[in-house]
């Protein structure tokens, strides 16, 4: 059970001119942050309930609030996970997803079970410095999601096994070698 009222109340309090402009005393700033956090936690339950209802299956949904500094315990550790992307806009959009991971290659399946092009890029030293010891991802998985208007798309991410990767690289190398030999 959860209510959006807590978050609405926190947002109401945060309409004070000091909250809008950041001219409040430090302990008031801390209180604003606490109110917003408590409200947001309640809304996470609401969104989870809504998604469970819409998707027809009850899952333990996870909200990673530190994706901007490449921290997400789930994506860092899981070998397979689902990504639900909700689009509140009244038009279809393409959105770039970046998720902290520790693998080197991933398969991403889109809503129609078609493979989605993806890349794994290293987490920058800037980010590692900022996040300190909050997360341990070495890389970020990057793909483009297409989301319908006022709706959501689900993507399934699976880490490729190391053996399969080596096999693929070897196959590619053998293919290139054969092409060279043909030339």
């Amino acid at each position, binding site marked *: 059970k959860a209510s959006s009222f807590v978050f609405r109340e926190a947002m109401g309090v945060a309409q004070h001119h*000091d909250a*809008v*402009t*950041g*001219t*409040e*005393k*430090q302990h008031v700033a801390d209180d604003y942050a606490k109110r917003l956090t408590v409200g947001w936690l309640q809304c996470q339950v609401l*969104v*989870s309930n809504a*998604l469970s209802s819409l998707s027809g299956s009850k*899952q*333990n*949904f*996870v*909200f*990673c609030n530190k*994706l*901007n*500094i490449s921290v*997400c*315990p*789930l*994506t*860092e*550790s*899981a*070998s*397979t*996970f*689902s*990504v*639900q*992307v*909700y*689009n*509140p*806009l009244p*038009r279809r*959009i*393409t*959105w*770039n*997803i970046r*998720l902290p991971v520790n693998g080197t290659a991933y398969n991403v399946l889109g809503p129609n079970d078609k493979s989605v*092009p*993806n*890349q794994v*890029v*290293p987490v*920058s030293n*800037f*980010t590692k410095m*900022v996040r300190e010891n909050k997360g341990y991802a070495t890389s970020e998985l*990057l*793909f*483009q*999601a297409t*989301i319908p208007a006022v709706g959501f798309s689900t993507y*399934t991410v699976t880490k490729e096994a190391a053996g399969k990767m080596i096999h693929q690289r070897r196959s590619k190398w053998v293919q290139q070698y054969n092409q060279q030999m043909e030339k």
Partner: protein
Amino acid sequence: SKHLTITNEHVEVSFSPDTGLLKMIRNLDKGISLNVAQNFFWYNASVGNSESSQVSGAYIFRPDSNKPFPVSSSLETYTVQNDLVQEVYQNFSSWCSQVVRLYKGQRFVELEWTVGPIPIEDNWGKEIISRFDTPLKTSGIFYTDSNGREILQRRRDYRPTWKLEQTEPVAGNYYPVNSRIFIKDNNVQLTVLTDRSQGGSSITDGSLELMVHRRLLHDDARGVGEPLFEPGDNNKGLIVRGKHILYLDTPESSADFHRPQAQQEFIAPQIILSATGSKPYREK
């Protein structure tokens, strides 16, 4: 020293081989290019002077000089380039860095900046800006939005309803930027979208700046009763990470881009994850 350029189907961004700073943006669809020098600067916060005892604080922005100091004049860069994204990582200092990013199919340049903790060991309060310098002849005119709705024309050292006697050449020309700021001439418009409300201005023609972070050591005596010290974790000061979206087009076409894009930034998609056969994050 190699000439560094990143490009996708719509935009090309060049960097100075000498400094590593952003140098030029080209809209490939329209064949428009503009020299844009971007750098981070800091204003030294005023502690009062002979003209006025007003210090820079939470309410009042008052630099002690009209000329900000560059955070760095040359920087370390490296690049990541693949099919989906082209990135240039710029390290300005131990407390200021930026990624210039072009995603596949994207019509704009994304600048993801990370600023802080602002050092104050020298006992100088600092107000950090990101500044874009262009050769555009703007005649003191720039534009900021009003809560993402009406775009208002701002004119340097001028107020539309009274005769202004300008006493603060920098702070007196700062305006709220809730979602966007732009400058233009007859042919080209440079628009910057923000991901949060910031202060912004155009202090010289062709220039555009946004204040991204500030840390101050004195109370400005306007009621808050404490300096904007921003202790953060362990009293080190806050680190702030945000985005500026840079878009180059003609003045006639720019609104077709910045209106829907600003909406997309402010009512952004939400990512929700769920595990399928995951392991615990830590063994213990």
